[in-house]
């Protein structure tokens, strides 16, 4: 333990000088690489005056395909998903294992984050109110993608000798392709995915989060934390360290308990603000629909609004990235389909409920006072919309933002860890090295200008959609077969409810 602490200390000391100079060096060195990777991954095709990144198109086509191919599982499975989460089908003899509710809650904590608060504001600023419509649509279609991912995650996971489980896209890609006689290709895809999720975990799941948490704290402090990024970074790194390396479960427990309440708290006050703006509600909703169809004032018109909406939705609910599949693999069930069904609630909660509420808070404020936010963008714009009605709200909002960032970091530390163990094996020593690296990046995130590094990680996370969705297409027939068999057995009464309520 002592050695680990020394190592962490050394790593953090290494990050400190970053605030003075190394920052620029890193940026200068990585900028051309970032630009190149970004250009490849987000390669854009001009379409009716808007630029459509191919990777977004790839995700959207996938989501539409799975929705149609599986006969609108996102609608058909919805009621059953709620029954499963409620525990209606839970065998009391298996009590003590991870429940469907717990798996869902864990995965939702990982996805509900800054994107739900700030990302929506970006979407509305760039894509106009119409982007909200497409955001909801993307959430709706994304439910089907999640279903496929999470079903496969459970079906192809590894059970380790010690009884723990490792699952996720790297496992279903490798085993799924191997089953179809494409052993080498499967290995390549699995490894590719593992590398991508590992690096993505250090960027989107880590530096971006700690950076945004710092920015929010600094905003609330009125700029009082300027130049103290290293201190905030060290504190955050220490807290993350104590949870993921020190195994201090109580901090994680507290966060995991507070985050759902924060999400509810956020939604309740958002609804209050929307109601306080009640005279603007019809106009705001009208704007969402007309904006979606006409794209008035948006570059690229309706198509432009569509692209922005879809892109933000993917950023927020991660459908197609495959990360949630790693979290859902932990559930012990004989029916992989049940986990898929439960997971389709995730884009629903994340995108259709929380993002839409945020969009309405901003939308109704805009109708009432078009210039309400001034120059504020992103999370600051959302904050300004709340502040119009509830002057004290920016402080709890910043607090919520920090907690969201923290829980996202904890979740992503695990996703990255699974990528790492897939590549380097399950040895404890290797895992500790990874965790230390993760903590160092938390500190780093508050200190460096994120620009190029974030672009690389961003691009990589989107890049892993390519193998992931390709794998989903290949394995979709297996999912369909399992799904039909499962629902037929529900229909026939072979699978019964345990609680007769």
């Amino acid at each position: 333990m002592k050695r680990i602490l020394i190592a962490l200390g050394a790593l953090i000391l290494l990050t400190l000088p970053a605030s003075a100079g190394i920052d620029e060096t890193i940026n200068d060195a990585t900028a051309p690489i970032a630009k190149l990777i970004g250009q490849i991954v987000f390669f854009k095709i001009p379409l009716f005056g808007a630029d459509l990144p191919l990777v977004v198109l790839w995700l959207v086509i996938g989501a539409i395909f799975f929705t149609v191919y599986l006969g609108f599982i996102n609608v058909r499975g919805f009621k059953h998903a709620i029954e499963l989460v409620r525990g209606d089908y839970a065998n009391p003899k298996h009590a003590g294992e991870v429940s469907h509710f717990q798996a869902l809650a864990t995965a939702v904590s990982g996805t509900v984050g800054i994107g739900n608060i700030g990302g929506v504001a970006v979407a509305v600023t760039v894509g106009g109110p119409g982007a909200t419509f497409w955001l909801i649509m993307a959430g709706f279609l994304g439910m089907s993608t999640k279903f496929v991912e999470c079903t496969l995650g459970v079906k192809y996971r590894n059970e380790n000798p010690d009884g723990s489980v490792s699952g996720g896209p790297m496992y279903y890609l490798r085993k799924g392709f191997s089953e179809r006689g494409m052993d080498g290709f499967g290995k390549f895809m699995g490894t590719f995915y593992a590398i991508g999720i590992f690096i993505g975990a250090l960027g989107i799941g880590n530096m971006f989060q700690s950076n945004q948490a710092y920015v929010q704290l600094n905003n609330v402090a009125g700029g009082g934390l300027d130049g103290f990024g290293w201190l905030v970074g060290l504190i955050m790194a220490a807290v993350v360290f104590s949870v993921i390396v020190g195994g201090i479960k109580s901090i994680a427990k507290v966060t995991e308990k507070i985050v759902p309440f924060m999400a509810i708290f956020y939604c309740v006050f958002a609804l209050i603000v929307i109601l306080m703006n009640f005279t603007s509600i019809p106009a705001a909703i009208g704007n969402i629909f007309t904006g979606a169809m006409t794209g008035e004032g948006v570059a690229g018109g309706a198509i432009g609004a569509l692209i922005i909406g879809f892109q933000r939705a993917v950023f927020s609910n991660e459908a197609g990235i495959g990360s949630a599949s790693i979290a859902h693999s932990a559930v012990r069930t004989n029916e992989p389909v049940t986990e898929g069904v439960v997971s389709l609630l995730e884009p629903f909660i994340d995108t259709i409920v929380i993002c839409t509420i945020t969009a309405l808070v901003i939308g109704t404020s805009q109708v009432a006072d078009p210039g309400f936010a001034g120059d504020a963008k992103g999370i600051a714009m959302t904050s300004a919309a709340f502040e119009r009605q509830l002057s004290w709200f920016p402080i709890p909002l910043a607090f919520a933002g920090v907690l969201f960032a923290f829980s996202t970091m904890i979740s992503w530390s695990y996703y990255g860890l699974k990528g790492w163990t897939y590549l380097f094996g399950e040895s404890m020593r290797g895992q500790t090295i990874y965790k230390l690296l993760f903590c160092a990046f938390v500190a780093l995130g508050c200190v460096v200008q994120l620009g190029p590094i974030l672009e690389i990680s961003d691009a990589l996370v989107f890049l892993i959609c390519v193998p992931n969705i390709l794998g989903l297409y290949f394995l979709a027939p297996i999912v369909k077969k399992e799904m039909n068999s499962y629902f037929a057995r529900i229909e026939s009464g072979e699978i019964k409810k345990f609680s007769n309520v």
Partner: protein
Amino acid sequence: MTNRILLAVDGSPGSGKAIKFALECAKNSGAKVIVAYVIEWSPYSFNTPEENAERHQRRNQEIDRATSSIVDPVVAKLKKAGIDAAGQVRHGHPAQTLAELAQETDASQIFIGRLGETGLKSMIFGSVAANLVQTSSVPVTVVP
């Protein structure tokens, strides 16, 4: 009516008294005793991904520990006295799970000690014995 008693234990002095009482009753009536221990657990808690991944392992450890340190000694004690006894360890909400176990094992009554919850905790959460009296579908004997 079956001649089977569900005996709820938790390793506390209170449950020691219930064990003694069950032993006497079973001796006199020739009843079978099912010794039950419930590990408090809720399916609606919030966990980290890592906790979820390790859950199966932890669950087995928890069950093993409860079986060897709490349930098995009681079963052995009863058997030594010539009573037909078996053990059960399960996760869940204590009172509710005990009531379910009674139904499952076809027990005709439940014996439970006052499980030593006092003060603030029982004021907020209620005591297991009191909750069991409210939810059980078979007679419950609370041993003071």
